[in-house]
């Protein structure tokens, strides 16, 4: 630029109203001289503004990652591998003088092991998927293939409302209704499960209903709408001509669902499942309210109290802030990094899986183009 941009309003001689909206939007009619040519400001600005907007999410992601890592770094240094393998979670003594470890000052007796939380997060999420995926796929199938368009419209509306319900409501329902219900009705079964490996995990006292099972089921119910509505949209895209083809061949509805609809949608359903998994991994409040939020121990049965990374961050933040050395907060930040990492691994896993299943999608696109 050889000269500073000069600004000229209404350079085109346009003298329409300068009051009201016109005066607010003056810049739309403004021209600017850049490098010897007059250019409309809005023409120059639009690409720049859109570019900035496009970069915002990326920058936000980087910033969150960088600052979280920066916050967590001292804790990563001190806790080391123990963070992943040990179970004890203790902020240490508030009163004794802090000690130095790897150049970081920490309270006496502070020790952080996140293994139960990592395991708990994965267990609850997997349980949620076990609950949600079959229900979601079957309900999507019923909505698309069996219900009249009016009923399926209403079911769809309900699914969308379910997505919007705040997680604290799910948590409340889980803690007050589902937990006690499961505890009451599964108590007898749970005490009669044989005490052998694997099955042992389903044995034991059901306590008051707070624990892995309740948390997993609540999480599952929370992600059903996500997986189901995505699956439903995918199933709607299966060309009618394919289903007609199956029907004309004398296939039953279930054969059509299994052999024609499923191959068509499976890659998308896998994607939707990972979307749901992402929600389950990060869900905080509902888990906090239904899991029993115990620290320092892994669940030894499906009825045991447990905890997840996200719920721990919330429940421990308050007490962590009383740690004068700030080490407890740094350890929670490390926990946050771990959660991001797990979510990232799941996302990449999903991408890889989708790539493996990719051929069907390509085929879908081919047919769609032909339609």
């Amino acid at each position: 630029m050889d000269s500073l941009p000069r600004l000229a309003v209404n350079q085109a001689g346009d003298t329409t109203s300068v009051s009201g909206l016109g005066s607010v939007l003056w810049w739309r009619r403004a021209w600017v001289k850049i490098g010897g040519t007059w250019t409309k400001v809005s023409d120059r600005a639009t690409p720049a503004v859109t570019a900035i907007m496009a970069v915002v999410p990326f920058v936000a992601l980087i910033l969150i990652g960088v600052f979280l890592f920066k916050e967590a770094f001292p804790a990563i240094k001190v806790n080391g591998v123990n963070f992943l393998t040990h179970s004890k979670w203790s902020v240490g003594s508030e009163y004794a003088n802090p000690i130095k470890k790897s150049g970081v000052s920490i309270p006496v007796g502070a020790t952080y092991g996140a293994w139960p939380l990592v395991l708990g997060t994965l267990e609850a999420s997997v349980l949620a998927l076990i609950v949600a995926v079959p229900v979601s796929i079957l309900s999507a199938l019923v909505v698309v293939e069996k219900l009249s368009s009016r009923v399926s419209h209403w079911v769809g509306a309900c699914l969308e409302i379910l997505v919007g319900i705040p997680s604290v409501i799910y948590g409340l329902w889980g803690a007050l209704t589902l937990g006690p219900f499961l505890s009451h009705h599964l108590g007898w079964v749970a005490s009669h499960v044989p005490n052998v490996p694997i099955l042992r995990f389903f044995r034991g006292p059901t306590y008051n209903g707070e624990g892995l099972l309740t948390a997993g089921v609540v999480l599952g119910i929370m992600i059903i709408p996500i997986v189901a509505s995505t699956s439903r949209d995918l199933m709607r895209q299966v060309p009618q001509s394919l289903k007609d083809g199956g029907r004309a061949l004398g296939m039953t509805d279930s054969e059509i669902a299994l052999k024609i609809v499923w191959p068509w949608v499976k890659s998308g359903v896998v994607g939707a499942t990972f979307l749901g998994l992402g929600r389950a991994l990060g869900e905080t409040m509902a888990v906090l309210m239904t899991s029993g939020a115990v620290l320092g121990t892994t669940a030894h049965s499906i009825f045991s109290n447990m905890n997840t990374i996200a719920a721990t961050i919330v429940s421990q933040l308050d007490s962590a802030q009383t740690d004068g050395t700030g080490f407890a907060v740094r350890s929670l930040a490390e926990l946050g990094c771990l959660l991001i990492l797990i979510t990232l691994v799941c996302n990449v896993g999903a991408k890889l899986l989708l790539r493996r299943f990719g051929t069907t999608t390509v085929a879908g696109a081919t047919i769609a183009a032909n339609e």
Partner: protein
Amino acid sequence: MDISTRAKLKDRPSGPQGALSDLVASDSKAVSVKKITGKFKSKTIIQGIDLDIADGSITAIVGPSGCGKSTFLRSINRMNDRIPGWSLEGEISVFGQDIYGPDTDLLSLRRRVGMVFQRPNPFPMSIEENISCGIKAHHLAPRSHIKEIVRARLEEVGLWKAVSGRLKESPFQLSGGQQQLLCLARALAVQPEILLLDEPTSSLDPISTQQVEELLREFVPELTIVIVTHNLAQAKRVADSVAFFMNGTLVEFGTATEIFEDPRFPETKRYISGSFG
């Protein structure tokens, strides 16, 4: 039907056959349609259709767009059943059995009355599975024989050479014509007695079209074929008898020779001569 009989039939003269009365002897009706009227909600789509289709013949159904040809065709294997608001009065029998009767097994009806659609619609599974899925669904052959049957059906439609090396691959990479042949082979794999074709060549190139037409002539008389077509030349080339539909009614039904050379009704004459449609 085995391949060797098929091969012999290749020598059979093709094209228009004798008089209609010879074709439709009372005991050789594949499809007998009596006074059917089909409605979508209150709108009548087909009305008062009476038609007998001779066993082992090729019947072409022609007529202008929206005249109910496809709807009629789809009533023969009850594909319209699922359409909300669809109702049908009258009687359609397939080999003497009322297919809208209470004891009709829909799945076995559709096995006996196969269908090929306007656009190729291979299933999202391998080429081999496209053929075998119907056989498995109807338990028509033991698992050990399936490979053989797949090969036989693909050979029958002249697709074997093109796909023998990639049976496990997706059918979507085949050309449109090859996909349609695959769909034809898939329909044949469940051993139908009647084959309904809904404008099977309208999305194909001329060479593939010719290929399909030649195949159809080879399939009769083991198979009864009903083909809906927009293409009058095609009807002339492949059909033994022709039904001309207009505004949901059957205007004229006769041998291909009768319809094309000496139509009785002025509408038919005008349509055949290309005045409308």
